[in-house]
Every structure is written in structure tokens, then in C-alpha cells.
């Protein structure tokens, strides 16, 4: 049977984005379209995960052109896991956005754009072709540019300029690497590249293109020293948009690094692996220090995104099944916890009229439920048991000890303590202390009621953090299998190169 349904996560958002544009005058119809599509996309991703869970690699040759000449879509366990997480986060954040964004903001193409963003994300996760990956990245980027400037506030334009400039540079470096690789090997299919580069004796060229790709993906994933666009831009748009970005964008960058540097390039050869450990270390430390210096919830959380990316890359450099499984667990845990923290930031903003910690307070008494959700997500992010973050860090630390990288593991544990410090800062200032008297000049704390549409997504994500923490065993087992699949790329190569035109 031809696996045409692997197309569903790409085709659904694309068609729905067009449909949402057609009914743009009617916000209610837009919401119905988005909700239906995202539910279907989640269902398709779960079905794909069930199929890949048996170890099968689902492939589809577009237009029946056989690999390596045509473009292929490939779903292995890593892709399927990421798809489920990304579509789930998109669904949850969209429901939250129904009430968090004003009707004008939603009417200004928010829904079609978020669908296009998801289209780019799903395409990047499924493609098996390097140039195709570039195109999906651009789809994702262009949608994110417009979302970032939605509302056209002064800070948004300023933040967007930094975001756009650095990400365009990243795209350019990516394109150069694609061109050089094609010039050398005559192919852009990832599986074919993998087998051709393994025979390549000219390590000079291989390392150059590897570094170009690492920098390009590093900018998108916000690695040190390329992360500066992220804390400059992420706190400027409305919270629902930032939450979507925090859940999806940088994680796709991490996915691209994981895919390319396990399948195409070998991290154990050459200098790349050694550098990556240090890049990971600096990313963790600089991110968490930046967070410590700030006193505004959204900026603190933005810096923590950077710091957490460091953990993922650290795990990648260990190159054992346990470590890679840990990285995947960490990515998905992070999508859940970090997105939820941004959702809570939106509720703080709604309640206190600001996310500046100097002007917040009293929420523990007024809204104990929000306080509970924050506490679960914050403790999970800091990596304390019994929530998901503990097992994510635990497996990374265990893998680090097994390969004997004690220094970087030590750094990561210290960074965990610093994360806890930031989280207690938000907890103390926003939830425990009493609400400061509003200054007469400042816009009064427009305490709005939090609707259940905003509360349900946050409760759901908090429950996910608890479930992934308490019943982590089956999750970790699946992810470790995904890690084994990544470390033994021969299955992937065979699945892609031996399929006939029109699918297997």
C-alpha cells in the first residue's frame, strides 16, 4: 500500500490556510476551520507515530520520482514524535489564542499565518531532501516574520528587524552549504548524501559544509553565539504568538541539527563534535545568566529558551542511544513546559496588566489555580522530581557519566540550580508578594477574568508534565528506540534508497 497519508500533516494546514483566508471576514468560521484542521493533523501525527512505533520507516516519493532523483518524504520515529508534539502544541496554543488575542489581532490573518507556520514545521520534520528542508524553513520563517510584527507596535518592529536580519543570514549560509554539497556529491537526498559522504576522502570540504550547516541551524536554534535575535524579539509580540514560537521554532532548528549531524555528517570525526560540546556549555550558561539579569517574565522565559537549547545540544554530543533518547525527551518536555510558562505569563499579564515583576503580585491568593499551573511547569523546567524535566535531565546526566564527560554534566547541573533561582524569582514576585499599589500615572491593572478557554490549555499542558514525569518509563523507552534508529542510519538509508517510485 502506498503511504499517501504521510502527506496529511503537510496537506491539511496548507488547505486550511487557504480556506481560512477565504472566510477571513468571519472570525467564527476561521476558528472552526483551524480547530478542525489542527485536530485532524494531531490525529494523523498520532497515526504516523503508531505506524513508526513498530520500527518501520514510512516513505513516500513525491510525483513517483524514485529516490534519489525525486523529493522524498520520510517519517522515522524521531519525525513522528516531533510531529505529535508540534501539532499538539499548535492545537493547544491556538485554543488559548481564541481568548488571549483580541478579535482585531485574530482578524489580521493570525489563523492563516499560524497554519502556514505549522505547515513549514511539519514539512521540515517530514522531508528527506536537503534543499526541500531549506524551502520548508523559509515557509516557516516568512510566516513567523509576519506573526512577529502582527500589531505593528514599536518594539515589535525593532525586535523583528533583528530577528529578520539574523535569520536571513542563516538562510543564506544554509543555501551556500546546499550548493557546495550538490557541487561535490551531485545529490541532495539526505540518505544518498549520507552514503556518498561516507566514501568522501576530501574531509576539508566536508568539514566546511558541516560548519556552514551548523551555523545556519545554530542561528535558527539559538545556539551560543548566534542566539541574540531570540531574547531581542520573543518578548515583543502578544503572548499567544510567543508561546507558539517558543514551542515550535527553535525546536525545529534542534531537530535539523539532530537529523543532519547523525545521518549526513559524523560527529565523531573531525573537530565538529569537540566544538559542539563547548557551544552547548556556553549556550546553557549564557542563557541562564541572561535570565537572571532580567526582571520581566517574558524576557526571563526567552533567555531560558536559549539555556534549554544548550542541554539538547549537549545530549547530542554524547552520541549514545540513551543520550539521544534523552534529548528527544528533553525537547518534547521543553515544548510542554516552556509553552505552558508562556501561557501563564499571558494570564499574569491579563490579571496584573503587566509582566514586569515590579508591578505584579498577589496572584497566589487571587488565582490559586494559575499558581498551581505555574508551579508545576516551573519545577518541571528546573528539573526537580516528580515532573517531566527531572527524567529529561536524569537521562542526559546518566548518558554523560557513561561517556565520561564530567565537566559538561557538572555545568548542566549548576545551570539547573540557576534555572530554579529564576523560577523562584517569578514565583516570589508574581504570586507570593502582595500586589503593589498602582502608580497613578500608569495604566491601571486591567484585571480581566481568565476565561476557561485560556485555562484549559494550560491545565492540559500541566497534566502532560505530570504524566510524563510519573509514567516516564514507556515514553523513555520509545525515545531510546528513536535514538537507536538515529545512531544506525543504515535502516533509514535503505528505506529511502530501495523504495520504488510511488512509495513502497
Amino acid at each position, binding site marked *: 500500500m502506498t503511504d499517501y497519508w504521510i502527506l496529511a500533516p503537510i496537506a491539511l494546514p496548507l488547505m486550511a490556510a487557504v480556506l481560512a483566508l477565504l472566510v477571513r471576514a468571519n472570525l467564527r468560521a476561521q476558528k472552526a476551520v483551524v480547530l478542525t484542521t489542527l485536530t485532524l493533523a494531531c490525529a494523523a501525527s498520532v497515526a504516523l507515530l503508531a505506524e513508526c512505533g513498530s520500527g518501520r520507516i514510512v516513505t513516500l516519493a513525491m510525483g513517483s520520482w524514485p529516490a534519489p532523483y525525486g523529493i522524498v518524504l520520510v517519517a522515522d520515529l524521531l519525525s513522528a514524535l516531533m510531529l505529535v508534539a508540534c501539532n499538539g502544541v499548535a492545537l493547544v496554543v491556538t485554543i488559548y489564542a481564541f481568548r488571549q488575542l483580541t478579535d482585531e489581532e485574530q482578524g489580521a490573518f493570525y489563523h492563516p499565518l499560524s497554519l502556514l507556520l505549522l505547515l513549514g514545521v511539519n514539512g521540515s520534520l517530514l522531508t528527506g531532501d536537503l534543499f526541500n528542508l531549506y524551502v520548508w524553513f523559509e515557509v516557516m520563517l516568512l510566516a513567523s516574520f509576519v506573526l512577529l510584527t502582527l500589531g505593528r507596535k514599536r518594539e515589535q518592529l525593532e525586535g*523583528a528587524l533583528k530577528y529578520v536580519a539574523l535569520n536571513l543570514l542563516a538562510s543564506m549560509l544554509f543555501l551556500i552549504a546546499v550548493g557546495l554539497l550538490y557541487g561535490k556529491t*551531485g545529490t541532495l537526498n539526505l540518505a544518498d548524501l549520507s552514503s556518498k559522504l561516507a566514501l568522501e576522502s576530501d574531509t576539508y570540504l566536508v568539514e566546511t559544509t558541516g560548519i556552514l550547516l551548523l551555523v545556519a541551524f545554530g542561528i535558527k536554534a539559538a545556539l551560543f553565539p548566534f542566539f541574540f535575535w531570540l531574547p531581542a524579539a520573543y518578548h515583543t509580540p502578544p503572548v499567544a504568538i510567543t508561546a507558539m514560537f517558543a514551542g515550535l521554532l527553535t525546536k525545529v532548528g534542534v531537530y535539523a541539527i539532530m537529523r543532519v549531524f547523525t545521518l549526513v555528517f559524523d560527529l565523531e570525526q573531525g573537530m565538529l563534535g569537540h566544538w559542539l560540546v563547548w557551544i552547548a556549555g556556553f549556550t546553557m550558561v549564557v542563557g541562564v545568566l541572561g535570565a537572571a539579569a532580567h526582571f520581566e517574565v517574558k524576557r526571563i522565559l526567552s533567555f531560558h529558551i536559549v539555556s534549554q537549547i544548550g542541554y539538547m545540544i549537549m545530549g547530542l554530543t554524547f552520541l549514545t542511544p540513551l543520550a539521544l533518547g534523552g534529548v528527544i525527551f528533553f525537547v518534547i518536555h521543553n515544548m510542554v513546559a516552556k509553552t505552558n510558562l508562556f501561557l501563564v505569563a499571558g494570564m499574569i499579564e491579563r490579571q496584573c496588566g503587566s509582566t514586569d515583576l515590579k508591578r505584579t503580585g498577589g496572584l497566589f491568593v487571587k488565582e490559586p489555580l494559575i499558581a498551581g499551573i505555574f508551579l508545576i511547569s516551573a519545577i518541571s523546567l528546573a528539573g526537580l522530581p516528580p515532573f517531566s524535566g527531572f527524567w529529561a535531565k536524569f537521562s542526559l546526566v546518566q548518558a554523560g557519566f557513561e561517556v565520561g564527560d564530567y565537566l559538561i554534566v557538572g555545568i548542566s547541573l549548576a545551570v539547573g540550580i540557576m534555572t530554579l533561582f529564576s523560577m523562584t524569582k517569578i514565583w516570589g514576585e508574581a504570586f507570593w508578594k502582595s500586589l503593589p499599589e498602582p502608580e497613578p500615572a500608569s495604566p491601571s491593572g486591567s484585571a480581566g477574568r481568565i476565561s476557561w478557554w485560556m485555562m484549559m490549555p494550560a491545565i492540559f499542558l500541566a497534566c502532560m508534565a505530570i504524566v510524563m514525569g510519573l509514567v516516564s518509563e514507556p515514553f523513555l523507552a520509545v525515545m531510546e528506540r528513536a535514538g537507536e534508529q538515529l545512531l544506525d542510519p543504515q535502516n533509514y538509508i535503505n528505506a529511502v534508497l530501495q523504495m520504488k517510485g510511488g512509495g513502497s
Partner: protein
Amino acid sequence: METLMAILIGLLFACGVYCLLRRSIVRLAVGIVLLGQGANLLVFTAAGLLSGQPPLIGAGEKILAPPFADPLPQALVLTAIVIGFGFIAFLLALVYRAYRELGEDDIQAFNKTDRT
């Protein structure tokens, strides 16, 4: 021919980087455009240049006999040019809006989102 293209690409990159390092946001946009063109030319050149050898199967032949020009890099570059066009349009609009909002072309004025 490749040498000439390589020099041209190098020049485009040098000009692009120079523009990026200036303090004006309009020059920043120009720099990104120049770098983008350099990258496009690089992809075009990387697979080798052949003039007068179209990839067509001659009359009475069954397969394509080398040497022939590779059409794929040209397809890639076309895609990249179209994508770049969209990005440049967005970038210019953004630069214009940012200039209107801040009344300033100097990058030093764009430091509000980075301050604590």
C-alpha cells in the same frame, strides 16, 4: 569562467559584509540583498559551468551523453531567487516601517528591546 565567477561572488560577499557592518538600517538591507545574490551565484557556479551544452537527448540517441550542463542547480537557484524576492520585499517594508516609527536610520537607536 569559474574563476571569474568566484571573484565576482567574493566581491559580492565583501560588499555585502561591508554594508552589514555600517550603522544604517538601509545599508543593512542592501547588505543582506548583496549577500543573497552572492549565495545564489555560488549555488549556480558550484556544480560547474558549461556553455553551449544543453541537457537534451539528440535525435536518434537513447540516453543523454555527457558532457551536458546540469539543469538542477538552475532550478535550485530559481527557487532561491523567488524566495529571496519575497524576503527582500518584506525586509524593505519592515525597514521603512521601523524608520517611520523611530524616525532614525542609525542602528544604535534600535536598542530598546535588548535593555533590561
